[in-house]
């Protein structure tokens, strides 16, 4: 079932504040081809804010009744206003930028603004989510989309 056009421009509540800690960064580094070292100051990789952006996406999917397993990531981009630093307390707020339907799939453009605890911009994470409502034979329990 296609999603409604009036999703465009809709924003969702900000994610819960996320504290950037060395232990979490080391874990993320170890999972992305790096090592779990770096002492007290591990380098923060450029894709790290996906942790917040993914939370923001989950809130969007839950609000619109979309199953995560029917989402394939179409693209992702991070544009930084400043680097993420250890000790940052960050939140992400997702806005739907565009929706179109191609071959039965919904192509959903999203933009998540990642800000620090003073509301200053840290980065913008834009993503295209491909929603495949009819793919496969699994049961589809998505609710009303709009």
């Amino acid at each position, binding site marked *: 079932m296609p999603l409604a056009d009036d999703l465009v421009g809709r924003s969702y509540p900000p994610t819960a504040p996320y504290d950037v800690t060395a232990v979490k960064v080391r*874990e993320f580094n170890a999972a992305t081809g790096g090592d779990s070292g770096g002492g007290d100051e591990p380098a923060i990789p450029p894709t790290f804010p996906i942790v917040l952006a993914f939370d923001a996406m989950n809130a969007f999917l839950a609000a619109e009744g979309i199953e995560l397993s029917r989402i394939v990531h179409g693209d*992702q981009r991070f544009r930084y206003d400043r680097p993420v630093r250890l000790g940052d307390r960050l939140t992400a707020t997702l806005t739907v930028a565009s929706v179109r339907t191609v071959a039965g799939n919904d192509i959903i453009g999203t933009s998540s603004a990642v800000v620090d605890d003073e509301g200053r911009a840290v980065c913008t994470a834009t993503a295209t989510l491909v929603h495949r409502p009819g793919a*496969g034979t699994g049961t589809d329990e998505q609710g009303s989309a709009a």
Partner: protein
Amino acid sequence: MNAGDALGPRTFVVRREDLVRYAGASGDLNPIHWSDRVATAVGLPGVIAHGMLTLGLAGRAVAEWTDGAEVVELGSKFTAPVEVPDDDDGVEVVVAGTVKAVEDGLATLALTVTCGEKKVLGNPRAVVRA
């Protein structure tokens, strides 16, 4: 860094274990990245790697090549899935790149990210402080 410089290649091995590790570290528990049953039920060939794991590996390669230069932009399309078999060998993801331009203190890196013969990221690029 100068325009025209070649970067890499850097090869990463991705096994099912790595998908589980990335799922935990990122919070992306989408079952298409660990359950063959769910992946095939939604029409995928089998378990596929998180696109963000692949882009994360590209970011890792950039960090290694640039000695940890500050990244001001990183992104790509996810054009082909990286299928990860349930075996001990996994698959190889290879990241290579070229310095396209250096201006105003910023270097633009054009990357290629392949698995086997296939490009798995579309137009992956990074902009770093030179």
